[in-house]
Each structure stands twice: as C-alpha cells, then as structure tokens.
C-alpha cells in the first residue's frame, strides 16, 4: 500500500538557506545588508580618519557666523554682515525666482512652438522643428554662456549719454545695457490698495460670471455672451477706482543718472542669461511633449466631436485638449523639475542662487565642504520630492478610471 505523504514540515536544515527559494531571499538580503553596512562603515572610518588627519570636524556652527560677502541680487534684506544662513536663504529665494520665471516662459514658448509645429503651414512647421532640434541638441550651459555674451556685447550705459546718444531707450521706457535690462516699475501711492482690491474683485467677478453663464447654458439652454462682459468687468471697475482714488499708481521709468541708470527695476545680466537660456532650452523639450500629447489623441475623437456638430474651437477645448493634457502634464512637470535643477548652472554666469552662495562662496570661505554640499543636496532633494508628490497627486486625479 502506497500513500502520498506530505513533504516533512518544519524540519529546517541549514542548506535550505541557499537551495530553497522560500528562504534564499533572506540569505541574499542578509548578505546585501552586511555588505552595505560594511561598505558604509569603511567609507565612514576613512572619512573620520581623513578629517582627523586634517584637524577638521563636522559642525554647523559656521552658519551663524557673518558671511562677509555681498550679493548683488537679493529679494530680502541682506548685508555682508548677515550670517551664512541668511546668505543661503537669499540663494534659495533666487533659485526659486529664476526657476519660476523660467517655468512660465518655457511653458509659453513650448506650447506655442509645439502647436505651431503641427500647423499645416509648411514654413512655420519647419521653422519650429529647426528651433526644437537646434536647442535640444546643444548643452544648456553653452546657451547660458551664449546669452550671457549677448548681454555683455549690448551697449554700456555710457552709450545713452550726451546730446546725440549712440543708443536710445526702447519706446523711451526700457534700457538695455551690458549690466542688465532696466524696465519701468510701478509705484504705489496712498489709496493704491483700493485699486488693487477692486482689480482682484473684478477678476473674481469674471470667474463667477463665467460659471453663471455655463450654468445657464446647461440648465436652461441660454447661451449668454461671455467675451465682452468679461472684457468690461476686467477694465471698467479698476479704471473707475483708479481715477476716483486720484491716480495713486504711477510708473517709475529708469533714467540715466551719472554713470548708470536709476529707478525702475533692474534685471541683472546673470538673471537674464539664466532665465532666457533655461526658457529657450526647456521650451524646446516642452514643445516636443506638447506635440506628442496632441498627436496622442486619436483622429477619431476629433471626427466624432465634429460629427456631433461641435465647432472647431469647441472641438479643441472640450474634446482634444482635456485628453491631450493628460499626456502632456506629467512630462511638463518633470521639465519644471529639470529647470529647477538646471538653475544650479547659475554659478557659471555669477547669478547668486543657492549653489553659488552656499555651495560656492560660503564653501570656499569656511572650508566646510561636506556640510555645505550636504545642505545643498538636501535642498534640491526636498524640491524634487515635493514636485514628484504634486505629480503623483495629479496623475491619480486624471488617470482613467477603468472598470
């Protein structure tokens, strides 16, 4: 009589650690962990013996000491007596400033180029693909340096002086010099708060009116005009408030005083170089994403929408764009992340971002290389984790709900 017996349970032998697939995973992980800890320990012991040999230690005391260097472009109050920590904060704000500006312009540029590249106009489509290929295939560092050189070869402020100046300001408002571009800045007098509030309220009003119009359309089939009322809401209340309050908001036009321009807002040369180069370079990548996104919407969708009797712009707004955006947005956000990371190239043109302050001057002055670079990496890591968190939330909200 033969019976099938189960394999013996529970009798664990040591050889099963290597030969049994149920347990082999644990062996491998244990080996990996031991190797990792060993390698870490080895590197750390090297680090500490090297530090000890040079009489160094790890300490963040230097952050409270005065930095002792000036920063040309600051968004918060900063003097050379401020601490290294404040210098780093100035750098963080500068990084975020140039990243934000470049994200906005790169998106505008990229969407325009991507849509025009799909245009049926042969010349424009070819011109746009030339733009995309030319800027995608050359390092961004070279573009930053090229635009920096363009700004350097602009006329110096001296060219604007004299009875018959060599150069004149653009429309009498904008001065472009080799030190940067000077643009008019608004000045806010007493009562300007009211004007700003009225303006914000009218923007809110436009949104509310548009929602009301859509509700009317869906509930009662009444098609209210939206364009002209929005235009009126945008301009009339703000202009009324502006004149009632006695024109409190003025414009400060830059003017030549002595050897340089005074007044207005100065956009320094490094900021221009970095901003424009990042926008144009990343714009080329975004153009490709936009093109791919629009092409990913199948032609049948457009035809189906047209056969329902939708007008071409409604087809675009209601059918094609919502589907294309699902494809476009994730790579767009990772391009924003790339802009933020590439803004660290600021150090090549002397723009004082976090890499140039904390990772550059502070590092060189204090010699605290490990601490500075650790903090620098931590900053970029935080930014990129935040952006990927935003992207995940978005992806989950737009992903197709499959049944």
């Amino acid at each position, binding site marked *: 009589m033969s019976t099938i017996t189960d394999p013996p349970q529970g009798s664990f032998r040591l050889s099963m650690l290597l030969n049994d697939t149920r347990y082999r*995973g644990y062996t*491998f*992980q244990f080996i*990996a*962990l031991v190797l*990792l800890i060993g390698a870490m320990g080895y*590197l750390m012991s*090297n*680090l500490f*013996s*090297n*530090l000890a*040999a040079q009489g160094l230690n790890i300490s963040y005391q230097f952050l409270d000491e005065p930095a002792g260097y000036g920063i040309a472009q600051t968004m918060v109050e900063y003097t050379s007596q401020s601490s290294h920590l404040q210098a780093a904060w100035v750098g963080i704000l500068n990084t975020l400033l140039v990243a934000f500006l470049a994200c906005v312009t790169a998106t505008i540029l990229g969407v325009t180029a991507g849509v*025009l590249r799909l*245009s*049926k*106009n*042969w*010349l*424009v489509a070819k*011109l746009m693909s030339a733009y995309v*290929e*030319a800027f*995608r*295939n*050359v*390092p*961004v*560092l*070279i573009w930053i*340096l*090229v635009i920096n*050189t363009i700004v350097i*070869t602009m006329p110096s402020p001296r060219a604007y002086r004299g009875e018959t100046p060599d150069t004149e300001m653009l429309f009498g408002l904008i001065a472009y010099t080799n030190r940067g571009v000077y643009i008019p800045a608004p000045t806010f007098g007493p009562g300007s708060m009211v004007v700003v509030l009225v303006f914000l309220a009218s923007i809110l009003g436009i949104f509310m009116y548009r929602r009301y119009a859509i509700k009317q359309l869906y509930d009662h089939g009444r098609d209210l005009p939206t364009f002209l009322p929005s235009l009126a809401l945008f301009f009339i209340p703000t202009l009324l408030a502006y004149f009632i309050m006695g024109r409190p908001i003025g414009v400060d036009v830059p003017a030549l005083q002595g050897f340089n321009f005074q007044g207005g807002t100065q956009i320094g040369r490094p900021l221009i170089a970095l901003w424009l180069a990042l926008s144009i370079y990343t714009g080329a990548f975004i153009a490709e994403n936009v093109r791919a996104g629009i092409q990913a919407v199948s032609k049948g969708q457009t035809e189906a929408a047209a056969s329902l009797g939708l007008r071409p712009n409604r087809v675009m707004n209601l059918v094609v764009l919502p589907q294309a955006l699902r494809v476009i947005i994730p790579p767009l956000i990772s391009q924003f992340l790339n802009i933020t*990371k*590439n803004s*660290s*190239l600021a*150090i*090549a043109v002397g723009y004082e971002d976090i*890499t140039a302050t904390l*990772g550059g001057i502070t*590092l060189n002055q204090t010699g605290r*290389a*490990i601490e500075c*670079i650790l903090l*620098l*990496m931590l900053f*970029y*890591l935080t930014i*990129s*984790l935040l952006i990927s968190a935003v992207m995940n939330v978005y992806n989950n909200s737009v992903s197709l709900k499959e049944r």
Partner: protein
Amino acid sequence: MSDTHAHSVAYVRETQLPQQPPPSTAAGPVKWTKDNLFSNIPYTILTLAAIYCIYLILSGFLPWALNGVWNTSNIRECREVLEGATGGCFSVLTERWNQLVFGTGYERSQYWRPTLAFALLFVAAAPVLFQKLPKGMLAFTAIYPFLAFYLIWGGTIYTPILAMVGFVVGYVVYSRLVAGSFAAGFFGGLAAAVVTWWLGGIVVSAITPDETFLAAVPSRDMGGFMLNMILGVVCVSLSLPIGIALALGRQSNMPIIKWICVIFIEFIRGVPLITLLFVANVILAFFFPPGTNFDLILRVIIMITMFSAAYIAEVIRGGLAALPRGQYEAADSLGLDYAQAMRLIILPQALKISIPGIVNVAVGLFKDTTLVSVISMFDLVGMIRGPILASTDWNGVYWELWAFAITLFFVVCYGISQYSQWLERQLATDHR
C-alpha cells in the same frame, strides 16, 4: 428617328481627347504654395512673419560666415584684414584647433594617438550599432577599451594588457561555473579577475621600464572636445550594466534590496549633476583610504556614472513594466530560474523597448559633460572660457568659438538621435 436625332445634335466628338494637365493654379508649386503657405489670412500673416524671421537670421549670419577670415594669428591681424567689414575671425579655430580638440596634454607629434583612438571608436561601435555587420568584429569591440586607454593615456603597455588578462580569466571562470548557477559563475569570475589584477599589479610594477613607447599623459592635462567624448563614452558604457542591475533590484520582491535601489535612484535623480561634481571635486577624496590619491578625472567618472546609472535604471524599469505579465509567467512555466529568465526572456525584450529612452539619457549625459568646466576642468567649454578667451591674442572672439562648440555638439547629438529613430524602426516587430 436616328436621322432626326443626328440633326438635333450639332456636333458629336468621335475621338477621345488626351488628358489635359490641371490648370497651373490647381497643381504644382502654385497650388502647393497656396495650400501650405497662404491658405487663409492668419496663415499668410504667419508665413510672412516666418519669412521675416528667416531673413533676419540669414542677413545676420551669412555675411559673418561667408566673409570669415581663416588664416591670421591673432584678433588684431584679423580685424586689419577685415578693415571694418562684417566677418568672422575663424582663424581662432585654425590656430587653436589642437587646444580646442585635444587639450594641452600632447606633444605636437603625438596628436595621432587620440585621433586614432577616435577613428577606431567607430570601428568598435559599428558591430554594436548595426546588427547586420559580421559578429567577428565584436572581438575588436572587446579589445577597444584597452587599446583606447593605451593610446590616450600612454605609459606602460602592461597596464592595459593586465586589465584585459583579468577580464579574460574572469570570463573563463564564469563560463565554467555558470552551468551550476549564475550567482556562482558571476562571483567566481569576479573573484578570479580581482586575484589576477592583484597578482599582476605586483608583477607589472616590478617590470615597468622607465622609458615607454608612448609617453604617459597626465589626465590633468586632458581637455578639449576629447574630454567630453571620453567622459560621455566611458560613463554611458559603465552605467548601462549598473543601470540594469539597479532596475532589476528595484523590481525585486526582496524588500531590503529594493529599498537600497530605490533610495539610491531617487537620491541621485533628485539632485543636480553639478552638486555631484562638487562631491567629486572636494568631498570624494575624504572617503578614500588615507594616503591614496585618485585622479580628478577618475573621481568625475565615478560620479557621472552613478548619475547616469540612476537615470538609465528608471528607463529600463519602464521597459520591464511595459512587458506583458505573460512573458514572466511563460519563463517561470518553462522552469527557468531567475537569472535564466532575465537573461534569456525578459531583458532582451525590455531593453529593446527601452532603447529610445536609453539614447535620450546618453544624449543628455553627453551634453552634461560640459558641466565639468564649472569645477575647472578644461573640456571644450572650459577651454573656450578659460585659456582662449582670456588670452591677449583672442580676447573678444566670442561668436566664432561658441558657433564651433554649438556645431560640434549639435552634429554629435543630432546624429545619435537620428540613429536611435532608425534603430526603433529596425526593431519594430509589431504589425501596424
């Protein structure tokens, strides 16, 4: 009846007319122009704007490029030759050509070495890039890294030979043991190679002659476009296997290994390359045993390889995820173990899907090699910004130098991306 009918019709054509060409407005260039450029008012405006843009670009560029001066020895002579006319001083390129391309490390008589290494790169890469070439050429590809190292760095020939012998010994041991299990083969081969290198290192340092056939070139003096090429080629080749390992590790169901890979990949991808280069420049030396001194170029290669390995790992992970579940199950049901299933079934397909992504990473990495100029290495960009623009002879010749750099990078990167599109078409096995 028929008579009346014949009379009621004034004229009946008896022969068929030959086909006429369509009117000139409905065919040919006129119709094409009308359809593609001037079909309606907005298009017409766009076309005119585009023509104006092209005119602006060409009117600035053509006189400068065509009226260029190619054979003066400094900027003042060049301006004298131009006599105030518009034109580029391209003589900076002819005069500083060797510096721009090779850096300052080689004697004038030694430039054939990097040039030969560059030319052989194409021979070595050809069988990898084009599957139709005979497989025998792969043997040269295997020798090429050692040959190129010898040509570029020079010094004793025993170093590359020893390195090669180590690989051969490792491979022999691997192929003996791999029949048992992949892990035994891999680690056995690795151990054999390391032992060979260790033993050989003692022998080589004993028999190295003082005078060598090819003079040794210190890596500190390497520069120019050659440095970009070295960094790009070496780092991409090294990061491929590491990237595959990281991607497989991230897919693994062993939590510790998975989390090691995830943390490594996300950390590297979260920081800019420039911070990693700072690490290579100032921090990495702290982690080596006291008394050792690594070349800067080697430290930079380590960091850039880690950087690109993380990106390649993400691309390959996408390829692995895109593979249908059935492929994994089919491999399991054939009774293949993990290493066999990956080597024979999963990776060949996953890598094929990932080719466009890998090429994108490679192009991006090649462009990013210019960042080493920030840590004061003299690659093409560093060479232009540093020694050439700062010299009294060529201070002020910006556009010619930047145009040269842009052209070089554009040719290489555009070429690679065109190759990748061609390869995608070649490898497309689905029927669409």
